[in-house]
């Protein structure tokens, strides 16, 4: 009996070891990423973000062929820039965000999420110095966000960011915000319907769209 009992245990151990050998990397990757994605979504302060970004950079450096670590590192830097008050430091974080994102772009040149994040970076660039940068970066942001929507019309983040830019432009010129609000509604809808097969796909942005929705009422 006792000898018989050991066999399933051994088999189980072997299977676990084998499956670890075969699937370990991906599983480990997904797990590590999920943990840190959670961290970057719940970060409250610049040190929180930097800690999460550091983790993404470690994973990205080890993996080299995955775009998600660089994407989230870039996202983390954008959030840091958002929290920073000093213009020069905001820009420095955005430089880091750009560097990280360009690595993601090398791996997946046509990923709507990555391109949308590029548009987000330009959007924050404007906020550093609207008077002298509005022209150049607002235009670039629009251009890039439109491209992200073109690639994936269901990407709610690309839509939400585009709505934000449209709203800002309309407000600046005192023109109608109808277009911006239509894009917002579209984004809201896509937030509920759009499901990516990628377990590590970005999930953020719904609050931003909800905020826009509030303004549209």
């Amino acid at each position, binding site marked *: 009996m006792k000898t018989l009992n050991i066999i399933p245990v051994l088999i189980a151990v072997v299977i676990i070891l084998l499956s670890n050998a075969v699937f370990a990397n991906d599983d480990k990757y997904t797990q590590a990423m999920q943990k840190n994605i959670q961290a970057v979504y719940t970060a409250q302060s610049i040190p929180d973000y930097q800690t999460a970004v*550091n983790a993404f950079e*470690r994973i990205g*450096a080890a993996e080299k062929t995955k775009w998600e670590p660089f994407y989230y590192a870039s996202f983390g830097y954008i959030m840091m820039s958002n929290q920073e008050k000093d213009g*020069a430091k905001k820009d420095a974080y955005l430089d880091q965000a750009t560097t990280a994102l360009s690595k993601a772009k090398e791996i997946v040149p046509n990923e709507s999420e990555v391109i949308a994040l590029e548009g987000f970076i330009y959007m924050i660039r404007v906020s550093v110095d609207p008077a*002298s*940068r509005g022209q150049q970066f*607002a235009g670039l942001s629009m251009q890039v966000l439109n491209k992200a929507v073109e690639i994936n019309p269901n990407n709610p983040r690309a839509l939400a960011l585009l709505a934000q830019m449209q709203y800002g432009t309309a407000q*600046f010129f*005192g023109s109608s915000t109808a277009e911006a609000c239509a894009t917002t509604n579209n984004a809201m809808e896509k937030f509920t319907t759009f499901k990516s097969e990628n377990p590590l796909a970005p999930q953020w942005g719904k609050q931003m769209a909800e905020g826009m929705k509030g303004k549209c009422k």
Partner: protein
Amino acid sequence: MKILCSTLLTFIALAGYAQTKITGKVVDERGAGIPLANVILVDTYDGTSSDTEGNFEFTTTETGTKILLVKFVGYKDSQREVVLQGKSVTVTVQLEEMINELEAVMITAGAFAASDESRRTVFKAIDIATTAGATADIAGALNTLPGTQKVGESGRLFVRGGDGTEAKTFIDGLLVLDAYSPSAPNTPSRGRFLPFMFKGTSFSTGGYSAEYGQALSSALALDSKDKAEMTRTDIGILSVGGDITHTQAWKRGSIIGKIQYTNIRPYFGLINQEIDWEKPPVSIEGSGAFRQQVGKDGMLKVYGNFNHANYSIYQHSIDDYNSKFLYDLTNNYRYLNGFYKEALNDNWIVRGGVSYTYQENDAMVGDDNIVETEKGVHAKTVFEGSLSDKVELKTGAELIQRTYNQQFTFDDGSNLTRAFDEVIAAGFAEADIYTSNKFVTRAGARFEYNNLMDQLSVDPRISLAYKTGTSSQVSFAYGKFRQTAKNELVRINTTLDPEKAEHFILNYQRIENNRTFRVETYYKKYEDLVKYVNDDASVLNNAGNGYAKGIELFWRDNRSLRNTDYWISYSFLDTKRNYLNYPYKAAPTFASKHNFSAVYKYFVQAINSQLGFTYSYTSGRPYNNPNTGKFNNGETPVYSDLSFNWSYLPKPYLIVYLSCTNLLGRDNIFGYEYSTEQNANGIYNSRPVRQAAPRFLFLGIFITLSKDKSVNQLPSL
């Protein structure tokens, strides 16, 4: 069996999951902890971030020899091998500070850099376009900065006791021979190059880099824009003419063409003018810019423009208004600039190019004809790079060739030609040596050979800058500068020595939270200025000399008041020189002791408008009254001007721009002209030099046509 089983499991666990603890501390060069540094066990997921004291601790199941990499923004990466065998590893990692743009001290003595790219500039490219009173003229906007003296009847840059020819303009490092459009006597001229063409402007009021030669007082270095991003057409309807610009952009390049017609006739018909125009100025101008990215980092830029302008006026005698003669001027101007920049490797870039200027002034003075032509070629190559992360080197060579010719054809058929050819071969080298992010020394020298006087010269330049706090710094600059005497002097005596100046500048600057404070003091010594021998304008030597000294203040704040940006400049100048016909050292007529400017810009969201006001004050300038015994002893009334502009954006693709100078209509007097002969009572008659018009009103409507309707011409205004 149970024992066997658990032993087996333990064994497996040990083999696969032996843990090593790695602890340590990340410190800077002074031993202070660096928080949030990234500690990476290379090629694994393992690692951590250092805590607020710089300490870190993590465990890893990896075994064998691995690389531990530590990195943090602003520091060089550090890596070392660690042996992982289950025993704790403790390391102290010292990171070496990197010299980086954000933290490092900058040389600011004498320099006003305006760029949209660099973050710590005092002045932005768009500021030039939106400064009231400047009407989108580069010199006009720079005249609101300290170090400049307003000379209302000229429109040029007069820097620290220097005259208008002592400030030189460079586009992408290449010399522009005459950067100003022709203007009637005593009316301000405008720069030939519009601010929207440039992404960066570096205006130096002294102590500039060894790269720039042939400028005694100031170097204005303009960096042209890179490739245009969007295909668009811009139309400008102006109260004094119109322009149309088309931009065609493709993936790696762009081309821009512009044509502009300016006719001030209708304007002069509307408003009574001081000047007796026969034909007010009319000009047609075209320009084109081509950009192409080459390879990975190469960029080719070609820019060219042509301008044809004409006007004629009646010059009245001071003694008798009815005695007058006609002065008719036709100016033809062409400028071509080809620039190439390429990265040689990660550390070195090469840039260079060729510029060509052609200028012809064909004047009829009464019945005499004077044709003045100047052709110039400037070729230059510069290598820039780092010898290490603490030493940056810039070195280059250039050749400036100028041909000047003045041809008189007198009414009686006789003629006279005065001409010269100048070739200057120059080389320069300059190194920026950073001792730390806090202290930098820039040392360089410029070598020049000039064929006119067959002379070889060496001019040293040195600057130091020290960061006194996170946002404040002190800098010092010293340099020797030389410049060939003005054309009208060299054409009389081609072997004149260049005029020379020595600059000593001390600067303190503090930039914090969108507020800038700057104070600068300087001493400038002039030598070898051209002098008339025995008061005879046809016999010249280099016996003249002079000095200028002063103190300047600048304050800018775009934070304290909502939607408001303003700056204030004050310059005090004490200068005297003995040159040309001066009997002894005296303050020149273009020098004013006190200059004050206040620029105010206010954004009104409710009406999509930016409003701007500029107030300028200049204390009285000297003038020579031959009726008194003392030279240049007269003093004009003070100059003051309040200008206004309004940019209105009703639609994303439409801008309405209105500007008016001298709102208060002050009758500014720049000086007095005297008759060359005494009248019956033994007195020289005089006439004041006044503004051409009390006010200049300008209205422009700018329309942009593009696929994306959210684009407008704001930055080009």
